[in-house]
C-alpha cells in the first residue's frame, strides 16, 4: 500500500512539473510587445502584443490631417534606436514587417506640410519641387512658382499670355512683357496655406499668305486691334505680279493699304495676277512688227492663203512664253480649314447631345 502511495506521489510530481513548465513557457511566449510612438507626440502612442511564430505587419498612413490647412507627412522611423529615412510620398500606407522574437519599439517622425495652390495656368512647376511630389511643402520651405508665359491653346491659332499674378488674392503684380519665355515668382514662405493666381489674356494668330511674293503682318495679336498687312508681289522675269484682291477675312483694302481687325485666329490670302504688259511690249510687239514686214515681202511673192487675226498671233506667242499648267481649285486652304472647324463643332454637339458635356460648358466652349 505504502509503495502504491509513494508511486502515486512520484507520478503526480512528474505530471505537475511537466504542466508547470508548459504554463511557464506559454506565459513567456506571450510577453513580446511592439511599442509604437510618434516624435513630439504627434499621434497617441500604442502597444500591440507580438505572437511568437507569426509575422506582424505595422501599418501607418504616410499623411494625416493636422488642422484645416495643414497635414503631417512621415519622414523617418526609428526601430529599436536605429533611424531609417523613408521615401516620401503623399498617399497610401507605410508598412513594416516586425520580427516577433522579442519586444520592439518604433518611433515615427513626421513633418508638418502646407499646400500651395496655383490657378490660372496648367503650365507651371515648383522651385524646388515638393518632397511628396504634389503641391504640399514642408513647413518653413521657400518655394517659387515658375510659369511658362505663353501657352498654345490651339496650334498656331490661339495662345494664352500670362500678364500678372496675385498671392492669396491680396497682393497683385504685373508681369513684364519682355523676351523671356517664363516667369518665376519671388520665394513664398510655406508656413501656412497660400494661393497663387495667374492672369492671362488670349492672343490670336494672323497668317498672311500668298502663292507669290512676300507678305507682311503675320504674327500674334490680342483681340480688338487692327493690323496693317501687305505683300511684296515681285515678278518672274518679264512677267510682273500684281495684287488683285485679299481673301479670307474682313480686310479693309482701298487699293493701296490693307488692314485686318483681329477678332479671333485669322488667315488672309493675297490673290496675285500675272501682268504680261511688259512681255507684250518687249517681245510680242517687235515680233508683230517683224512679222508684218516679212508678211508684206511674202505677200508680194506668194498669194495669200489665209489671214490670221492679230489676237490669235498674240495668244500663240503668250502660249509659248507661259508653259501650260494644270488648274487647281482656288481657296482650298480656307475650305479645308472650315471643314476642320465644322468637324470639331459637330463632335462637340454630338457630345452635348449624348449628355457628355453639360449645357453650360457646351455654351462656354462653343462661344470660345
Amino acid at each position, binding site marked *: 500500500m505504502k509503495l502504491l502511495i509513494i508511486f502515486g506521489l512520484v507520478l503526480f510530481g512528474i505530471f505537475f512539473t511537466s504542466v508547470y513548465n508548459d504554463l511557464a513557457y506559454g506565459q513567456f511566449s506571450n510577453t513580446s510587445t511592439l511599442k509604437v510612438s510618434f516624435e513630439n507626440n504627434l499621434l497617441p502612442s500604442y502597444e500591440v502584443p507580438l505572437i511568437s511564430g507569426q509575422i506582424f505587419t505595422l501599418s501607418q498612413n504616410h499623411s494625416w490631417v493636422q488642422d484645416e490647412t495643414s497635414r503631417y507627412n512621415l519622414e523617418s522611423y526609428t526601430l529599436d534606436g536605429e533611424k531609417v529615412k523613408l521615401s516620401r510620398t503623399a498617399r497610401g500606407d507605410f508598412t513594416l514587417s516586425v520580427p516577433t522574437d522579442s519586444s520592439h519599439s518604433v518611433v515615427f517622425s513626421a513633418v508638418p506640410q502646407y499646400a500651395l495652390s496655383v490657378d490660372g495656368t*496648367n503650365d507651371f512647376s515648383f522651385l524646388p519641387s515638393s518632397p511628396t511630389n504634389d503641391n504640399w511643402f514642408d513647413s518653413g520651405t521657400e518655394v517659387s512658382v515658375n510659369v511658362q508665359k505663353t501657352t498654345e491653346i490651339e496650334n498656331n491659332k490661339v495662345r494664352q499670355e500670362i500678364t500678372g499674378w496675385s498671392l492669396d488674392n491680396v497682393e497683385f503684380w504685373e508681369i513684364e512683357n519682355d523676351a523671356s519665355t517664363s516667369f518665376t515668382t519671388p520665394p513664398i514662405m510655406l508656413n501656412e496655406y497660400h494661393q497663387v493666381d495667374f492672369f492671362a489674356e488670349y492672343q490670336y494668330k494672323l497668317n498672311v499668305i500668298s502663292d507669290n511674293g512676300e507678305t507682311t503682318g503675320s504674327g500674334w495679336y490680342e483681340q480688338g486691334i487692327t493690323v496693317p498687312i501687305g505683300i511684296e508681289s515681285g515678278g518672274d522675269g518679264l512677267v510682273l505680279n500684281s495684287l488683285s484682291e485679299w481673301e479670307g477675312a474682313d480686310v479693309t483694302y482701298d487699293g493701296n493699304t490693307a488692314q485686318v481687325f483681329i477678332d479671333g485666329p485669322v488667315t488672309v490670302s493675297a490673290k496675285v495676277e500675272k501682268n504680261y504688259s511688259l512681255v507684250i511690249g518687249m517681245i510680242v510687239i517687235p515680233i508683230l512688227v517683224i512679222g508684218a514686214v516679212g508678211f508684206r515681202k511674202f505677200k508680194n511673192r506668194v498669194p495669200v492663203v489665209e489671214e490670221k487675226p492679230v489676237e490669235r498671233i498674240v495668244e500663240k506667242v503668250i502660249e509659248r512664253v507661259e508653259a501650260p499648267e494644270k488648274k*487647281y*481649285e482656288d481657296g482650298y486652304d480656307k475650305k479645308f480649314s472650315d471643314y476642320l472647324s465644322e468637324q470639331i463643332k459637330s*463632335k462637340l454637339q454630338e*457630345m452635348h447631345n449624348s*449628355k*457628355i*458635356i*453639360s449645357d453650360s460648358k457646351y455654351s462656354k466652349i462653343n462661344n470660345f
Partner: protein
Amino acid sequence: MLSEEDLIARILKIKQLKENCFKYLEERSNQLLTQKILFAISELTAEEMGPVKLSQIAQKTTGEKDKLKQDLVRLTIEKSLLKCGLVEKLKYASNDVRYILTAYQFQKIKEIDSFRGESTQPIGDVFELPKNTWPLSDEFYLLLAKKHGYEESLNKLHSDYDADVIPRGKYETLNSDYKKSLDQINERLDSKYSGLEALVVSES
C-alpha cells in the same frame, strides 16, 4: 483649390459601397434630399471645377440658402453622405468649409463573413453619375473634339488628293501639319487625361 489631377483621380476611381449606402444612388431614392444633395454637389463641382460651399448646395437643392436650409443640408450630409464616404469635407479656413464627392463611379458590394475571413462580393453593374456632371475641364472636351476634327480632315485630305483636287505639294504640307497637330493632341490626352478618353467616349 484641388488640382485637376485630383479631380481626374476621383472620376477614374470606382468606390465600393455597402447596400445601406448604395441605396442613396438608386432610382427609388430620387425623391430623397440625400440623393438631391449628391447630384447637386456633382453638378456644382463640374461648374466650379473644385469643392463647393454649403450655401451653394442648399440653393441648388432647396432653392434657398438661409441658415435653416443650410443646417438641414449640413445635417443630411454629416449623418449619411460623410459616414458612407460618398462625400469629403474640406476645411480651407475656419469659415470656409467645402464639400466634394469622393468618386463618380460606384460598385455595390456585399460583405461576406466566413470561416476564411471577411471578403466582399460585387453586386450588379458599376453605377456612374451622369457624365455631364463630371468635373472635366473645357480643355479635355476641346481635345476630344479636335482629335475627331483632325482625323476626319486627314481622311478628306487623302481622298481629295486621290481625286486630284489638290497638287502634291499642298497635299504634303497640309498632311504634315495636320498629322503633327493630331500627334500633339494625342500626346496631351495620353499624358494628362490618361484613361479618361476611353471612359468618357467609348462607353458613352
